[in-house]
């Protein structure tokens, strides 16, 4: 029974992973796969119904919605991946350093974190964005920063939890140096929780990027991003609600798959 359940969980995980990979590849090869130039404006072709030529029809500027959806994968899923990877790598560097040093460095680190975590994450991101000005680059900076604070504290905790373990002590006594200790002993043992956290939050980050772009603080026109496309479609909600439907559904699908993947990782260990 438990074996059967495990097998079923494996199949489900593989299923989500495959679809996500396909979506990722679609984004990667978007320039080849796009039937039209996603930025080409042609007012005479605006609001065309879906056809063989334009699978999802065209938007208010006569741009091919299907091509825009494909290219948007890079800006929605792609930027979220970049944010998560940069944030977790920085966090591992800082968290590991602080956890191995302890003492005054650790104390200062915790105090600074306390102050930074006194701001709700989204509000901190809004504040940073407000000062840096609206752009995709600044959204990346703001979100890397907010994710980094949270992760570095988490990683510090995970590392300190291992500090007292026998095998770490043994490695220390036999003279393993700091960097080797981190790479050979700490990280392999902490990989499962770290991967789970990173995957779990990709969905959240996609939603945040989309939210910022929707408000007009993130990806700027004419670059397609799903949140941005919802924003563009909102004026035509009465006549052409499908313009908002496609990008919204794409966000929901990707975030659902990511959440499913993360929860199956969590069950795994």
């Amino acid at each position, binding site marked *: 029974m438990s074996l059967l359940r495990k097998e079923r969980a494996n199949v489900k995980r593989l299923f989500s992973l495959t679809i996500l990979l396909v979506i990722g590849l679609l984004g990667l090869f978007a320039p080849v796969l796009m039937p039209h130039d996603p930025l080409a404006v042609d007012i005479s072709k605006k609001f065309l119904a879906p056809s063989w030529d334009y699978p999802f029809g065209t938007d208010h500027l006569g741009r091919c919605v299907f091509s825009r959806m494909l290219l948007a994968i890079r800006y929605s899923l792609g930027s979220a991946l970049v944010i998560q990877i940069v944030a977790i790598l920085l966090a591992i560097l800082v968290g590991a350093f602080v956890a191995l040093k302890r003492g005054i460095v650790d104390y200062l680190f915790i105090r600074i974190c306390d102050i930074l975590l*006194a701001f709700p994450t989204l*509000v901190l991101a809004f504040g940073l964005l407000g000062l840096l000005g609206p752009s995709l680059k600044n959204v990346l900076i703001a979100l890397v920063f907010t994710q980094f604070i949270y992760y570095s504290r988490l990683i510090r905790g995970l590392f300190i939890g291992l500090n007292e373990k026998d095998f770490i002590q043994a490695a220390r006594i036999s003279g393993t140096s700091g960097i080797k200790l981190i790479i050979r002993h700490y990280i392999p043992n902490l990989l499962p929780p770290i991967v789970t956290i990173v995957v779990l939050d990709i969905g959240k980050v996609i939603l945040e990027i989309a939210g910022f772009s929707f408000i*007009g603080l993130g990806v700027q026109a004419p670059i397609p991003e799903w949140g941005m496309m919802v924003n563009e479609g909102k004026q035509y909600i009465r006549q052409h609600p499908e313009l908002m439907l496609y990008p919204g559904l794409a966000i929901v699908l990707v975030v659902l798959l990511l959440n499913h993947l993360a929860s199956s990782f969590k069950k795994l260990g």
Partner: protein
Amino acid sequence: MYESTWMFCLKRILTLPFVLLGVSILTFVFIRFVPVEPAEVILRLARVAPTAEAIQALREELGTDKPFLIQYLLWIKGVLHLDFGTSFVSKLPVAHELFAKLPATIELAVAAFVLILGISMPLGIISALYKHSIIDKVIRLFTVMSVSIPTFWLGFLLLYLFSLKLGIFPTNGKGTLAHLVLPAFALALPTIGLFVQFIRSAIIEELQQHYVQYAQLRGLKNSVILVRHVLRNAVIPLSTLLGMTLGNLLGGAVIVEQVFSWPGLGRYLIESIINRDYPVVQCYVLIIAVIYVLANLCTDVLHRLLDPHLMMKDRRD
């Protein structure tokens, strides 16, 4: 060593000034990240040519040519008198406008909070009691969906369905209860999902405790066990979620207010960000951080007072 509840509260309250000091310094330093000179922004907004002399004169007037520490002390002196500077755009005191917009956001957040509790409690309880049944699966699907839907998109779906197609609720504006329903629901939904998951697993865990078995053996009715014992214990850990919920509501409000044209703090913030009205952004971040810090303090203390485990340990020492 276990510290007593009162010691804990005292310590927590004593660290408050330090956190607030740090928050104020950080909020002040924030403005230094600005890639452009504030004096230049003001001149441009006033449609004055930003010449070097004009910028210099304005900097002296604003006090931004003074040393950093002096600037901070002057600013914090103003803040303590509720003077957060003047808006670049409207030339009115920032505090005046922000506090005028605060009630609308609080109204929305409170309504969302009522919805969160009102919807997630019954769903969580049903889902736990009928674990692994069809109804549990449906509720769990709902919770997974609720955390995966972008708030702004959900807002538009609700608008399209209930306002444009069915005509039950007004599309935007504020005033009556009907205006409040859709935005509050859109704001509440992501947090509802988290609460349902939390309540479900808390109840399932409590049901496996020995005291439940003992209560059954004593012949108590299941409904009595559920309400008097299980629910009481399962609800206490919810207090740890309150801080996060407040953060979600304040952050989410920025987006929801934009969708439903709700005249609150969030919309004002976005407007100010786009106009590069830095004093407003700074003031907003500071006010929200202070609210958040105080709320977190309250939940920590509340949790400490409510949790019988912690109180018991307290007495034992």
